C-alpha cells in the first residue's frame, strides 16, 4: 500500500509546495489525454524545476513505491500520458524554453515543454525550418513529439521527428542522467542510444533537453486541392504520384464525411459533393515547384480528378492546412464518441487499404470518417460512435481488429505515428513477433527493473 501523504511530503520537499498539485480538481483534469475511453486519477502531480529534481523524484518513487508518468500537454492518442495506478504525474509543459538557435550549425536546442508551433515560429524568423508538424502542433510539446516520434503533414518529404533529433538528455528510471548525441552531424561514438528514446512513449526515461536539426526554409511552395468522385480514384492518384517519383511535401486525403465536418467548422468553402479530396503541397526552388505542380495536376486528371484548384496565396494555403489539421476533432461533430486509428500501409497499398476500410465499416454496420497522411500510407480510419452503446462498442472493437489485420497483411503496421500506449498494447501483444517483443521488454527491464516509469504502457511485463 502506498502512503499518499508521505509521497506528497517527499515531493513537496523536492520541488516546493507551489509545484505540487493535490486537489481533486487538478487530479481530474490530469486523468485523461486525447485518447477516447481511458481515464485514471493520479495520486498527485509535480512540476519539477531542475533535472536534479526529476532524478530525485524517480529515486523517491523507488523508495516510496509509487509510479511515475511523464506528461506534456496531453494530446497523445494512445493513452501514453494517462495515469496508472498509484502514479505521480511529472508535468513537463512548464519546461518551455528555446535554449539556443544555432544558425551556424543549423540546430536548435530546446526544453521538452516547448510547443511545436512556437518552435516553428522561432526558427522560421531566422529563415530556418523544422518540418515535423503534427495536426496538434499548436498545443503539443516537443517532448511529447519525441516520445511518440510524431509525424505530421510534411512527413512524406521531410520525415518524422526522429529524422531531426540529433541529441537528447534524459533522466533514467533509476535516477541517473544521460545525454546522447550533440550538434555533430556525424556521431557514431558507441551504440546509437539517442534513438532508443525517440518513440519510447515515456517508458525508458524522462527527456529533459533536445538538440534538433534544422534545414533552410524552402524557397517556394504551391498548394492545391484535387476532388474525386470515388475514394479509389483518390487512392490510385496517391500511389501514382509517388510512382512518378515526385515527392510532394504534403499529400493528405479526406473522405466525404471528413470534408463535410471540416467545412462545417472552418467554413472555407470546400465543396462537399465529392467523395474524396487530396490536399497536395509541393515546395522547393520555384522552377521545380512549378514543374512538379504541373505534373501532379496531370496525374490527378488522368486518375479521375473532377477538379483541381490552387490556393491563390500563402494565406489561403495556410487556411487549407489549418482546416486539415482540425479534421480529427471536427469529426467529433457527428457522434458523441470519436475513435481514431492509425494503421499504416506501404504507399502502393493506399487504394486497396481505403477499399478495405469501407468494406469493414459496412460489415460491422459502423460509421467511419477516414482521412490521413495518404502520401506516407498513414491513414486515420475514424469510427464515429457512442460509448454508451455497449453492443456497438463491441463491433467497433472487432472492426478495428480487422483493420489492423488487413493492414499487417499488406505489409503495414499498427500505428504510424500515435504509438501503442495503452490503447493498442493488446494488439501489439497479438501481432508483434515474439522475439521482437522480448527484446523490447528486455530493454525496458534493464533500464527500469522495478517498473517505475509509465508501467503498463506499450506492453505489460
Amino acid at each position, binding site marked *: 500500500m502506498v502512503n499518499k501523504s508521505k509521497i506528497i511530503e517527499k515531493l513537496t520537499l523536492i520541488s516546493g509546495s507551489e509545484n505540487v498539485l493535490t486537489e481533486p480538481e487538478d487530479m481530474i483534469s490530469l486523468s485523461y489525454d486525447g485518447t477516447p475511453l481511458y481515464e485514471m486519477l493520479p495520486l498527485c502531480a509535480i512540476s519539477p524545476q531542475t533535472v536534479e529534481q526529476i532524478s530525485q523524484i524517480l529515486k523517491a518513487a523507488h523508495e516510496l513505491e509509487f509510479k511515475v508518468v511523464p506528461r506534456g500537454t496531453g494530446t497523445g492518442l494512445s493513452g501514453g500520458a494517462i495515469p496508472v495506478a498509484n502514479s505521480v504525474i511529472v508535468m513537463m509543459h512548464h519546461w518551455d524554453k528555446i535554449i539556443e538557435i544555432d544558425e551556424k550549425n543549423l540546430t536548435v536546442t530546446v526544453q521538452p515543454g516547448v510547443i511545436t508551433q512556437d518552435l516553428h515560429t522561432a526558427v522560421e524568423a531566422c529563415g530556418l525550418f523544422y518540418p515535423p508538424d503534427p495536426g*496538434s502542433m499548436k498545443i503539443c510539446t516537443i517532448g511529447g513529439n519525441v516520445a511518440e516520434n510524431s509525424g505530421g503533414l510534411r512527413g512524406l518529404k521531410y520525415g518524422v521527428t526522429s529524422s531531426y533529433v540529433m541529441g537528447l538528455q534524459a533522466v533514467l528510471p533509476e535516477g541517473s542522467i544521460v545525454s546522447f548525441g550533440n550538434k555533430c552531424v556525424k556521431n557514431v561514438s558507441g551504440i546509437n542510444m539517442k534513438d532508443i528514446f525517440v518513440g519510447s512513449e515515456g517508458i525508458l526515461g524522462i527527456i529533459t533537453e533536445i538538440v534538433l536539426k534544422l534545414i533552410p526554409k524552402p524557397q517556394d511552395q504551391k498548394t492545391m486541392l484535387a476532388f474525386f468522385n470515388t475514394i479509389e480514384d483518390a487512392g490510385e492518384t496517391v500511389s501514382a504520384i509517388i510512382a512518378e517519383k515526385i515527392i510532394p511535401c504534403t499529400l493528405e486525403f479526406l473522405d466525404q464525411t471528413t470534408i463535410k465536418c471540416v467545412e462545417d467548422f472552418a467554413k472555407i468553402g470546400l465543396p462537399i459533393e465529392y467523395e474524396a479530396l487530396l490536399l497536395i503541397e509541393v515546395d522547393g526552388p520555384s522552377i521545380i515547384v512549378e514543374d512538379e505542380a504541373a505534373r501532379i495536376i496531370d496525374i490527378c486528371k488522368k486518375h479521375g480528378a473532377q477538379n483541381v484548384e490552387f490556393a491563390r496565396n500563402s494565406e489561403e494555403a495556410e487556411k487549407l492546412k489549418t482546416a486539415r489539421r482540425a479534421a480529427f476533432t471536427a469529426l467529433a461533430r457527428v457522434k458523441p464518441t470519436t475513435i481514431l486509428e492509425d494503421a499504416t500501409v506501404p504507399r502502393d497499398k493506399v487504394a486497396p487499404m481505403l477499399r478495405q476500410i469501407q468494406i469493414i465499416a459496412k460489415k460491422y454496420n459502423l460509421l467511419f470518417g477516414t482521412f490521413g497522411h495518404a502520401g506516407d500510407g498513414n491513414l486515420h480510419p475514424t469510427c464515429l460512435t457512442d460509448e454508451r452503446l455497449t453492443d456497438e462498442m463491441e463491433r467497433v472493437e472487432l472492426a478495428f481488429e480487422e483493420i489492423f489485420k488487413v493492414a499487417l497483411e499488406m505489409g503495414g503496421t499498427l500505428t504510424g505515428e500515435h504509438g501503442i500506449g495503452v490503447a493498442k498494447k493488446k494488439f501489439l501483444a497479438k501481432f508483434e513477433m515474439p522475439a521482437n517483443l522480448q527484446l523490447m521488454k528486455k530493454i525496458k527491464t534493464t533500464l527500469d527493473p522495478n517498473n517505475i516509469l509509465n508501467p503498463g504502457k506499450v506492453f505489460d511485463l
Partner: protein
Amino acid sequence: MNPSENTLPTISDDLLLQCMHCGMCLPTCPTYVLTKRERSSPRGRIRLIKSMAEGKLNFTHEFITEMNFCLDCRACETACPAGVHYGRIIEETRRVIAETTKISYKTRILRRLFLTGLFAKQKRLQLLARVVRFYQKTGMEWFVLKFNLTGLFSKKLKQIAPLSPKISAKFTKQLLPEFLPAHGETKYKVALLTGCVQDIAFAETNLATAEVLVRNNCDVYIPQNQACCGSVHAHTGAVELAKKNLLHNCAAFYIDTIDALIINAAGCGSFLKESGEIFSLAEDAVAIKKLASKTRDISEFLCEINFRKPEAHLDLIVTYHDACHLAHGQKIRSAPREIITSINGVILKEMRESDWCCGSAGVYNITHTETANKLLDRKIRNIQSTNAEIIISANTGCSIQLAYGIRTSGSQLKIMHPIDLLWRAYQAEERNE
C-alpha cells in the same frame, strides 16, 4: 450535500460528450495561457463539470472557484473544431452554482446592488450616474481616489472606483426622440436598444447609431420604456429576472412589427441572440425566440443591408479590438472591419491577439481584478505596438476597461465604436456639402 444534489440535470450528456478532449482549444484560453494549469482550461473545466454531473466530484469550493475563474470569453468555442457549446455548459453550471450554494455575503450585497438596484430600473441607474458625474466634474473623484476614501466603503468599491466610466454629459433620452424617420425612402423599420451602461457611458454612440440608421433608409424606434436586456441577470444566475426583462422588451420594441432590433453593445447582442435557446422550454418561448431572431448587431445589420459608403476622407490610423461577445459569441469579425475600411483614408492596423479578452468580461474585472489587469496590460501592449491613434471597440464593457488601461498607461489613445467612426465620416461628408 448529498450526492443526488450534485448533479447538473440541465446539462445534457450529449453536450458534455461532444468534447473529445483533444486540447485544440488550450492555446486560445487566456486563463490556461496565464496559469498553464489544465483545470483552468476549457478541456479541464468541461471534464470537471462532467465529473460533477456523474457524481464523481462534489460542489467543492475549488470547483466553484474554477468555474468563476473562467472569463466566459468563448475563445474556446471559436477554436473548437468539434463544435462544443462551451458557453452554454459554463453558464448553466454557474446558474446551478448560484442556486445551490450560498454566495458570500459581500458578493451577495454587490450583486443585489447591481441586479435589483442598479440594472433593474434604468431610471435608478441614471440617477446614480448623475451623482457620479457630479463627483467626476467637481474633482471629488480625484480627492476620493487620492485619499482612498472609497476604501471606507469596502475594498471592492475601491477596486471599482477607478474603473467607473466617464459618464456621458447627456443620456440617450435627452439626445434622441422616441422615433426618428428615415431620410428618404423607408426600407426598414428597426428598434434601438440603448443599453444600460451604454446609455450612461456612451450615449453618443446611441446617437451615432440612430443617425447612421436613418441615413440608410431605416425608421428608428427608441422606446423610452425599454428595460435592460437581461444579460447581467442571466450571467449571474438571476434567470427569472432576465426572462422578465426579455418579455417586457418584446412588448416595448413592438417585436412583431419591426424588421430588426439593433444592438450596439456586443454583450447585449450576444445574450439576446442566445435567449431563444436559453428559454426554449419556457412558457413564453415563442415571443423570446422572435426577439432573438430579430436581434442584429449594428455592424452586422449595416453590412447585410449594404450600407452607404461615406464619401468623406478621414486621415486616421486605427486598430480594432474584437470583443469576445462579438467575435466568439456572435461570430462577427468581418462586419466591423468592413465598416472601418469603407472610410477613405482610414488605415486599419491589426493588432496581435485582437480577439483576446481584455479582461472586462462582465463583472470579472471587479471579481478577479488581478487576472483582469494582466489581460488588460497584455491588450494595451498589443494595441500600442500598432501605433494606432484610435482603438475601435464595439462593446461597452471592453471600452470601459480599455479606457481604464489607457488612463493608467498614460497613453493618448482614443476609443471609438465602429459606428462613431462611420457617423463621423457621414458628418464630415455633410459638412463638405
